[in-house]
């Protein structure tokens, strides 16, 4: 069986490295693709721009989306994604440091499926990855049309 693909949208190299370590530590059975800003992420999802040539069959089962990013912010990316009929079907989990009520509200209003805060301790991050894997990739059933 093909391992599910998770699109990780994260601009901070540190957080990205930690995430990698955590996924490794959690021994999570999924592939992950990294985009370092909103634009990249959208390009990848819709196989366009720099990603026009990618394998269109590979489609994310989940997007982990940071909010504070250069170029195109997470919320902007979310809006663009949800504007697309196919993009609308992909679960998006916001993973960010922000705990501003306005950010939380706008994330949900923009169509996020969950809002998670980045934990401080590495061990917590490992637990979080395990939880995401368990919930979104094992228990959760995707939309039939989601590829």
């Amino acid at each position, binding site marked *: 069986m093909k391992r599910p693909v998770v699109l990780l949208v994260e601009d901070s190299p*540190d*957080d990205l490295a*930690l995430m990698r370590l955590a996924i490794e530590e959690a021994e999570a059975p999924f592939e992950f693709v990294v985009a370092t800003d909103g634009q990249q992420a959208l390009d990848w999802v819709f196989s366009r721009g720099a990603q026009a040539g990618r394998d269109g069959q590979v489609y994310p089962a989940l997007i982990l989306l940071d909010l504070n990013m250069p170029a195109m912010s997470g919320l902007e990316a979310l809006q663009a994604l949800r504007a697309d009929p196919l993009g609308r079907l992909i679960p998006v989990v916001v993973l960010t*440091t*922000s705990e*501003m009520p306005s950010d939380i509200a706008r994330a949900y209003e923009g169509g996020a499926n969950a809002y998670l805060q980045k934990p*401080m*301790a*590495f*061990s917590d991050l490992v637990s979080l990855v395990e939880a995401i894997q368990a919930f979104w990739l094992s228990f959760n059933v995707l939309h039939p049309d989601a590829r």
Partner: protein
Amino acid sequence: MKGARGYRRIQLPMVLIRRRAQERENTHLTHLYVALVQANQAMLRATGEADLFQDICRICVEFAPFGLVWLAVLKEGQPCIVAAAGPMQGYLDGLALSADPADPLGQGPTGRAFRGESVICENWAEDPQLAPWRERAARFGIRSSGSFPVRTQQGVEAVLTLYADRAGIFQQDKIGLLEELTSNIAFAMNQFRLERQRLAAEAAMREEQRIYQDLVKALPAGIYRLRVQPVPAPTAAEWESIYFTAYAIEFASDRFCEITGLDHGAFKANPGLILDRIHPEDRADFSARIAEAVTQLVPCWWEGRLVSEGSPCWVRFESIPRRLPDGGSTWTGVLTDITGRRRRDNAFRRMHDLLRQAESIAKLGGWEIDLDNSTLYWSEEVFRIHELDPASYTPTVESSIQFYAPEWRPVITRAVQRAIETGENFDLDLELLTATGRRLWVHATSEVVLQDGRVVKVLGAFRDIAQERLAAETLAKSHAILAGILESAEGPIFSVDRDYRYTSFNKSHEAAMKALYGREVTLGSYMLDHQTVPADREIAKANLDRAMAGEAFTEAAIYGEEGLSRSFFEVVHTPILSAAGEISGAAVFALDITQRRQAEAALRLVTDLLRQTGHIAGVGGWELDLETQSLFWTEETFRIHDLEPGAYSPTVATAIQFYAQEWRPVITQAVQTAIETGRAFDLELEVITAKGRRIWVHATSQVVTRDGRVVKMLGAFQDISERKWNEEALRESNQRLQLATGSVHMAVWDWDLQAGTMTWDDRMFELYGTTRLETQGTVQDWKDGLYPGDLDRAMAECEAAIRGEAPFDTEFRVRQRDGAILWIKADATVLRDLEGHAVRMVGVNRDITELKRMETEIRNLNRGLERRVVQRTHQLEVAKDELEAFAYSVSHDLRAPLRAISGFTGALLQDGNSSLSVEGVQHLQRIQGGTTRMAQIMEDLLKLSRIGRDDCTLMPLDLASLADQVLAGLRAAEPERRVDFRIQHPIPVQGDPRLLRLLLENLLGNAWKFTSRVAAARIEMEAHSLGEAMVEISIRDNGAGFPSAQAVKLFTPFHRLHKESDYPGTGIGLAIARRVVGRHGGHIRAEGEVGLGAVFQFTLPVLQEELP
């Protein structure tokens, strides 16, 4: 047969013996029955116990086979024989008996019977217990005996003992009968006791009754008791009609009849008679009172008069009802003669009247201001002084002040005010304008009443001192007058002592002596020496001697040297009396009457004319004949002087004395001038009338000359007081006002509304930028001076004030002639006559231009200030927002690198394959600890910054249940800890739930944290109300506490009182707590003591109850 016969023989006698014994037995029994019956009959007959006992003993001996029967009762514990009978009675003489069981004698039959035993001794010869009496008994032939206890309700009360000369008498059936006898005796004794008790009770009752009767007799008041039939509620009138049938007298004491004068029997037969005894005028009242009391069945009293032969007898009825089952009632009452008391009351009332009269005579009134209900009380004399009717006028503090003359009102107002405010008493002489417009002097003093250091009452005396003042003034003046008269008198006056030495003389005398004898007289010199004409000296000496002998007389005399300067005098001689009443000299007043008679005829003509015209016009006339020095007054002139026409003969000297002292020189001078130059006078002067009234008069004169010489003066005399008073009062008050207002730069105007004239003072002219030369200060001048834009408004306010709708208290602008604009503050009072019509309007103007300018300046300044405050506030808000955004982003942005440090450290530590040394691992752990703490600090800082930024929405909530939730969280985190929570439930407050949770998390979290090292940890939370709007909540723990001096610093961020290693924390929690409380409008404070615990107290708003 023989045997049978023998048997029968034997048998027969035995049968006989038995039969005989049986018969004897029967006989004995029969006898005993008889005795019993007899004894019972005796009991029925018995009148006394002693007789009965004796009878019983006698009957037993008489009818039964007993040689001795006696009855003993216990007296002081010893048996005592009270009755005995029988031939063996001698046995009893000196018989020793005892009921004491310890005494051997007490073991005998009597003793035992007293202890309740029936003792039968069938054989005296053998019974060992009878030993003490055996020998003695044998002597009297006693063989057997029976002793029976007589048992009454009181126990064994007596013992009946019966003796027989044979043994075997006391068989069972006889014992039974004898016991019945003793029980009958006991019954009788019980009956006797009851009888005795009844008698004693009766005696006691009789005694009591007697005492009561004596008491009732001895009482000065009458006692009665009556019964009232059930009647429907009657009116007073109905009551009188049923009086005769509805009442029944149950009891009426002698005294009652004595007071009412009613016959005992007649009154009992007809209770209605009492009505006839009530004074006819009081009868209706009496009936009404009785009717009311009987209807309501309540205790009642009535006081009134009884019909009596002599003076009326005053009585008081007082009665108390008791309801009877049949709906009627009994009334027990007391009737008191209160005539004496009434007399005392009357005496008191008379005293009061006397006092009032005395008050009136002294013209001394009393007044009182009760500050608690701000009422003013006046005694009757105060009303009288004000010439007011006490019944129709109620004084108030404000209205009473209006009675003072206008110039005195501020004085009394201030004095009263000071008395009220500072308790300082006053003592003032003031002028009063009475209700009828009289002006009089009063003396007002005060006395404050203090209570708890506060003035609650001001009372004082009030006295009409017009007379007094006048008298004092007059006295002072009369001395001066006398001196004046002496000096200026027309005729020579002098006085000498008993040695004919001068004690005084006037100029005229001095001049006369010079003219007649060419002598200079001096005081103390020998008067007769100066009379150089011997004939004159003789006459003078004789006259002086006559006066010094005590005679006052007038003699005509001609003095002077013949042909030289001879004058015809009428000389008045008067003895001078010393204070001790002795004649100390003589006074002489000589009058030159040389030309007196000449004008008499002409005089008469004029007087007639004057009398007629004067009376009609209210104008008096006077005439002075200079030749005779006689003064004539018309009737009207007398009246003006408050004198009966003709009751007094005026002279120039005495007439002048009627003038007020300050006017005497004026009139004297005027008369003098008239005489000397013939110039008439026309003067307004003050006169003090015979009644002491000070009045203004208008006196004019004309002169009659003959040969170029004034021989007569005559003139008109008119009372012009009223006009003068008005003028004077106005002038005075103007002056005073001027004085008063001058110092505060007030301008005063006075508008006579009836005449339409206005008067300005100097300052008014100044204010309106004009002068007396340019304007007159009329109403039009005022209008012209007003700034046109303010004119209509000012006029409207002025008219409103005149109509009494609003006080005149306004501001307007005045445009002076040179164009300067002044701001004027104007106040005015409208004066009204007794009917309330506006008569005058008096007001003040004050230049408030400078004040206005300053006001404007201040207003401008304020406006600028407000603008700046708004700007600054806005700037501050922007800065605050920026700052908070900055704080947020700082803490947010700081978190990313921190997470990197923390994350990678954790990753390193978690890496199982790591080749780290133990030391390396420890270092990494420290790095991780540091990052954790830093993260916590940043989180707290974020919270702190957010409390100020986020909305605080107040809603009613229960702080206690919020505390429960927080504590449940704390418990869940450390389930092993045992902490005693005492939370008061509920604690209703108004607050933002999220913020208050944060507050409790911090405060309870602290309490939880700092009690972690205490064995019996305890956390308490309680609330108590602070008035209606706030509640104070205390959270108390018995944990580590803190030095009390540190209490204030606690709430500063990052301020820690404990080592982090002891009690972890960021040091921001209490700063958060303070900010939360502050956002709710409350305060927080802390108290603590090291090792004993801490208490945090904060206030929060509570839901205020909605008003109905």
